[in-house]
């Protein structure tokens, strides 16, 4: 079996597992919608306000919903022992981790990103803005998954691991939030927003390239 087929088999396996547990994905989506709903209740339903805060609020809500899903990345595999089996196979651990990242992103982050435009419309965002919201989320969520995946591997099996994960990962993800919501805000200000999008893409490349290796190293520690 080649490395690429091994990668593919991990992706298929994790997607199948996610499909069997589709409730988990729905919980994340519901959380996203709920957080986005709370802001108009707390601040007031004035359309001009909502238009102004919409991009930032939706990005923060998406970031938090993604963070909520991160502990699931390795948790169940670790609990039932299949993570150890996966670590024992002859292929590089980083390839296995990259496969899990890809499947996790497809199963958890893509549905969130696809739901975001709907909420954007509820906030009164014009089409140019919610399209940019979708694009920035699709570019930004891989960073959340991969960089957060390193944090998930580091905190695997620790007391209060989920809270610790948030403390570790949120400061590191500040740039993603800034450029993601900044791209939408730039569109609102009449610019193209491509500068922010390019920076987001550059960070995504760096994170996707380096994170699997670091997460693999952290996972081996957690298992030993």
């Amino acid at each position, binding site marked *: 079996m080649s490395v690429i087929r091994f990668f593919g088999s991990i992706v298929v396996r994790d997607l199948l597992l996610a499909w069997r547990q589709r409730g988990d994905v729905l919980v994340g989506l519901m959380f996203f919608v709920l957080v986005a709903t709370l802001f108009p209740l707390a601040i007031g339903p004035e359309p001009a306000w909502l238009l102004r805060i919409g991009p930032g609020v939706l990005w923060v809500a998406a970031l938090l919903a993604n963070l909520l899903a991160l502990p699931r990345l390795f948790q169940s595999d670790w609990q039932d022992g299949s993570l150890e089996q996966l670590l024992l196979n002859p292929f590089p651990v980083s390839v296995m981790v990259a496969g899990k990242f890809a499947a996790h992103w497809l199963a958890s982050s893509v549905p969130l990103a696809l739901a975001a435009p709907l909420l954007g419309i509820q906030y009164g965002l014009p089409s140019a803005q919610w399209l940019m919201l979708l694009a920035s989320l699709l570019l930004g969520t891989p960073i959340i998954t991969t960089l957060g995946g390193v944090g998930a591997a580091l905190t695997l099996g620790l007391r209060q691991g989920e809270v610790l994960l948030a403390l570790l990962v949120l400061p590191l993800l*500040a740039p993603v939030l800034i450029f993601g919501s900044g791209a939408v805000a730039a569109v609102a200000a009449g610019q193209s927003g491509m500068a922010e999008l390019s*920076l987001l893409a550059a960070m995504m490349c760096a994170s996707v390239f380096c994170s699997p290796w670091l997460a693999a190293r952290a996972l081996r520690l957690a298992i030993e």
Partner: protein
Amino acid sequence: MQTPTSARSSRHWFHFSAPSTFYPLAGRAIPWFSALALVLALAGLWIGFAIAPSDAQQGDGYRIIYLHVPTSWMAMFIYVVMAFWSVIHLVWKTRLSALMAQALAPTGAWMALMSLLTGSLWGKPMWGTWWVWDARLTSMLLLFFLYLGFIALTRSIDDPDRADQAGSILSLVGVFNVPVIYFSVYWWNTLHQGASVSSRGSSMASVMLLAMLLMGLAAWMYAIAMTLRRVRVLILQREANTRWVQELTEVAAKES
């Protein structure tokens, strides 16, 4: 991994990387660095508060700069040093370098907190507000949280080996992210509101600069002394069951 010849040549290089040889060395070095920190701080404070003139625009309120700037420098510098030891630990698996990183983190967090506090004390009379979401302030706050995350992670792992390696990986991720955070916050700030608060007005008189440099050196010496003290405690905790720790005069005296 190592061939016999390289082991012999590396014995010299790594002589003090063993906790048992580093512990007494650190013990001898601490009084020197503490004394240096004290002397430099006294000289810096004296020049800064007694000799340096009042600022043309800010009066005497500017004098908190002698605490604010050194702590800000150290907060950023210590993270880089921490990452340096972490890389050494990840590559050569020397135990002491991970302990150094863990000993540095609380001092770094303390420096970041002091920088934020002195900054807000300075900001209230000068800008009329305790806190602005300025680029420098926000990135320092995030740096403070990065230190706290590192400390929380290494403290919550019971297995020492895993704690060392996890901390090293985290600070490696952090050191690549700190410049990204710094510049992103900077651009975010310039995009949304003009950076009106970063202009300092007058250029600095050479006496003021001298006092600030002396305080900076004092903060450096203080950080070294504190880190060495903390690393000695960490060494004792880790090696409590070894023979050389049992034979230390201070440990033996406690137990009898």
